[in-house]
């Protein structure tokens, strides 16, 4: 279990799962689920969908990282091959340690995956000797850290990497560990025996073929995952030691940098950085990464599950304002997905069209009643003829048929929405001052909120479009046509025809029919998750608000009926600290104990002790502080409600 979180707080270590009877995931899902009848089916749908999203994001991430990983692999290969050159220049050159500075951006939680795939790739195709070092491993163990620990760890990792390959490695490693200290010279010897053995290796031994094809002396790669967090002295010493062995041991470093490459110069003096041959690798910025994820996961009809505007807004603002973490964004989607299938019984219809149509037929009476209570359905009913209204509200079979039609409509709506959204974005994203946003996600948010064609920004965007030069406009329209090309829908086909004719017609057609907000669609509740408050509460915790809620109304957390009170009062049965908290709210800036403890009840020893304990708990939570002027005097530290 790791406590690597950057937040300050307490960490809960649950006792190992062995003692309890473990419940399966599905059991957890079904427990306390709304509408338990079809919960199993919903669980399956939810899981399938999540699996798909997960694999898709992984593929996406791999693709995004491919460029940088490929160039890193090239770099390592090149370094190990130039080592074996023996021309004059490379002999003369002071031997530098080849180093790749990998700039990954400040979203540190996302880096783990990149490093994982990097070291996997390296091990597959370049060298079996890859070790990753993290600063926290060194800092948490001892305050005063020596490179020795780095070395021991490195050897440990390198050895374990090879354990599976050959048993003898284990024996030699055991010998090394028996010797008093690990040092680079022992690592050197170990490396030499390893490579010699593999060079003269018996043909019967199984070795992964890429390694055999690779260089005779595979490099030893050390990855520093978080360079900024390393103690500069440790790092300097480590590099100095390594440079003494560079002739015997083909070392290579990879620095993971979160901020900017100039940190290298801040961390290392010239005498040390002159031992390195640093090459820079810049990864995709996290905002680009997010844009791709949104493009491939959200703005597609492929996934029936959708987020409404508010939830999207919460997720995006957490990303932009707080952490830049794409992984957390995807976690947010996962949470919304789970919540949706858990709390919305009609989510059983949130699946592929064919399946949804089947599921409609299997709805029972209770579910159909739920449909009748949906806001969007009520609005739909109101628009129908009186006879039809009665039918819809009373006849279950009729309702099922209508539902099938409505589901089809909803799918059609999605089918048209995204291509048209992209068209509008293409047209407006290059306009001056970006009236409809620079990123497609901004436009998407606008469209989710309201009728985009009624907004002022839309009007000004259209005005600007009219003022564009002819060739620019044609280029834009051509790009729109390309977007619409694969669409099959007839309406869009006709849009395409009109588009090629003239802009104005296109304009009228495009947004009004296809970009209306999803709330206007009947049965949108099936697919759209709307509870932004839940997502916000889960993803962006507010510890102080929770503490105050607990102190103000203990019933909220303790769920004991005796704690239920009228607004603003506090029950006798409440914990001592709640009563003391209430009392302190009534006081001014400075509080004297004697008056307070009088309020607390008749003074006897036990009560007095309880009072003192409650006060110190309150101090521990940071609501009061002793003033040091008098012994029974404290000062309030918080004001107002939060």
């Amino acid at each position, binding site marked *: 279990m790791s406590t690597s979180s950057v937040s300050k707080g307490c960490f809960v270590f649950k006792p190992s799962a062995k003692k309890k009877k473990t419940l399966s995931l599905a059991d957890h899902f079904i427990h306390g689920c709304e509408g338990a009848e079809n919960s199993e089916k919903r669980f399956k749908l939810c899981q399938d969908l999540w699996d798909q999203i997960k694999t898709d994001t992984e593929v996406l991430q791999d693709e995004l990282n491919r460029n940088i990983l490929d160039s890193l692999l090239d770099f390592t290969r090149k370094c190990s091959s130039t080592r074996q050159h023996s021309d004059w220049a490379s002999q003369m050159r002071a031997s530098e340690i080849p180093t790749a500075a990998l700039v990954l951006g400040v979203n540190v939680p996302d880096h783990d995956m990149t490093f994982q795939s990097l070291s996997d790739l390296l091990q597959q195709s370049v060298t079996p000797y890859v070790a990753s070092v993290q600063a926290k491993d060194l800092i948490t163990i001892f305050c005063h850290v020596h490179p020795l620990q780095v070395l021991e760890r490195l050897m440990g990792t390198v050895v374990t990497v090879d354990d599976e390959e050959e048993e003898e490695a284990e024996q030699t490693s055991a010998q090394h560990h028996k010797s008093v200290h690990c040092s680079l010279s022992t690592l050197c010897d170990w490396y030499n025996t390893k490579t010699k053995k593999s060079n003269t290796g018996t043909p019967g031994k199984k070795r992964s073929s890429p390694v055999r094809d690779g260089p005779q002396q595979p490099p030893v790669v050390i990855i520093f995952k978080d360079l900024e967090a390393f103690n500069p002295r440790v790092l300097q010493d480590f590099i100095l030691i390594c440079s003494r062995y560079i002739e015997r041991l083909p070392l290579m470093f990879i620095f993971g940098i979160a901020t900017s490459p100039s940190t290298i110069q801040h961390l290392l003096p010239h005498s040390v950085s002159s031992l*390195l041959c*640093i090459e820079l690798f810049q990864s995709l910025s996290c905002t680009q990464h997010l844009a791709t994820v949104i493009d491939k996961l959200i703005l597609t009809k492929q996934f029936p599950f959708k987020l409404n505007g508010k939830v999207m807004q919460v997720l995006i603002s957490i990303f932009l304002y707080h952490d830049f973490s794409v992984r957390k964004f995807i976690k947010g989607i996962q949470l919304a997905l789970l919540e949706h299938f858990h709390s919305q019984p009609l989510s059983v219809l949130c699946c592929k069209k064919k399946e949804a149509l089947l599921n409609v037929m299997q709805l029972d009476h209770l579910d159909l009643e739920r449909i009748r209570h949906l806001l969007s359905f009520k609005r739909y009913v109101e628009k129908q003829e009186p006879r039809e209204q009665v039918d819809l509200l009373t006849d279950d079979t009729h309702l099922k048929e209508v539902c099938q039609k409505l589901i089809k409509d909803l799918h059609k709506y999605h089918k048209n929405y995204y291509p048209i959204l992209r068209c509008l974005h293409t047209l407006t994203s290059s306009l001056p001052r970006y009236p409809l946003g620079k990123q497609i996600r901004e436009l998407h948010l606008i469209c989710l909120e309201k009728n985009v064609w009624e907004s002022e920004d839309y009007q000004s965007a259209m005005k600007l479009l009219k003022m564009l030069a002819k060739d620019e406009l044609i280029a834009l329209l051509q790009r729109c046509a390309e977007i619409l090309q694969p669409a099959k829908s007839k309406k869009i086909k006709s849009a395409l025809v009109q588009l090629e004719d003239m802009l104005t017609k296109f304009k009228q057609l495009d947004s009004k029919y296809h970009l209306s907000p999803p709330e206007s669609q009947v049965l949108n509740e099936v697919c759209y998750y709307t509870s932004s408050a839940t997502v916000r509460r889960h993803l962006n915790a507010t510890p102080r608000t929770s503490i105050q809620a607990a102190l103000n109304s203990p019933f909220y957390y303790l769920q004991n009926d005796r704690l239920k009170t009228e607004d603003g009062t506090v029950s006798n049965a409440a914990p001592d600290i709640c009563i003391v908290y209430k009392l302190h709210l009534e006081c001014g800036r400075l509080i004297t104990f004697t008056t307070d403890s009088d309020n607390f009840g008749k003074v006897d020893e036990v009560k007095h002790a309880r009072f003192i304990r409650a006060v110190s708990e309150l101090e521990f939570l940071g609501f009061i502080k002793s003033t040091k002027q008098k012994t029974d005097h404290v000062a309030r530290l918080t004001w107002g409600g939060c």
Partner: protein
Amino acid sequence: MAALLQHPGYEEERLQRVAEQLPCREVQAGILLSLMGQLPHATVSCVECVSVALLFEQVLLSFFGCDAASLLPRSASLSDFVRIYRQQCSQSPAKQTRYIVMEKAELLRDTDANLLPALLRLQELVEDNVTIILLSEIVWDKFRPNTGCFEPLLLHFPDYSKGELHTILSQDRHPSYSDEFYSSYINILLGVFYSVCRDLRELRHLAALNFSKFCEPLEEGKVKETDTHKLWRNIEPHLKKAMQTVYLREVSSVQWEQMQQTEEKENGALRGLSAHTHVELPYYSKFLLIAAYLASYNPARTDKRFFLKHHGKIRKTNFLKKNEKTSNHLLGPKPFPLDRLLAIFYSVVDSRVAPTASIFSQISSLVTLQLLTQVSHDDQLDAPKYKCAVSMDFICAISRTVNFEIVKYLYDFL
């Protein structure tokens, strides 16, 4: 040359070899040879010996073999070392003097206080014919522990003169070029670099990196080997550029070589390491950093003036204390408590921000990224103190991206 190194008791041939390996150090080599011979010795690098135990192990290993070294307990002390040394040397007494050579001996000062004095009297402690040689770039005066110790014999190695550097560097000549040609190249190289760099290792590196460029006009047949002036005209701007880039490790040597090949086509496409200072940060992190900067460089009593809307009248004479003004940036960042940081943060950020956990975690992230430094100890949960660790330029760039005019809020620039 070799004449200097004539010494009775050494074979002529060996002396010759020593002289070849150590050009321009004939005098010092002569003294050393007269003091000692080619004898059993242990060379230990003090950087590598991260613990004294490792140092002891290496010494024992090279004198008595690995059996002796393995006798050392896990965290060996000095007395363990002395005990095992004595035990071993009684088994195999020294026929000649044993030498322990310590590179980067200045690091010994950071180890246990008793180590250096004990090493200097090791001969008495172990009762063996053993000598310690300390190699260091620091004068002996800086070593002397305040408890006193044996004074070693000092032997000063002066810096190589320009002529000596020239002689040494000229020895690495390229096999396919003549001695004179390479020597003239070294001459030009030293002309550019001698004023900034005397490090032989570094100079050798630079010589190797730039030689191909020097030969270029020759390869193309434009000049003859003897036309030094033309060659100089060709290489000099190139070397000057090298001084600003590859010498400072702004670009790596591999990139430098690639640049040489593609120079004509695309010039200046490569940016140095220090050119990349831009850091993307989440929105609130930017404001937290701005707040931290303000807290670090403004006196706390001025916060009221900057961040309170109705701060009332503050007397100008009182507010602007003479020597306090303009000095804050010269004095560097001052520590501030977390409360003050948050108070300023809530006042500078334009929207209402809930005090969520992620605001606090961002502060910790900024500390890990070394944009803030935590001054108080890690254990202090109550009111941790921080310092802002970014430069004025950096914070101005950050402020620009969020449309915050930081200069208006800085006491020094009022």
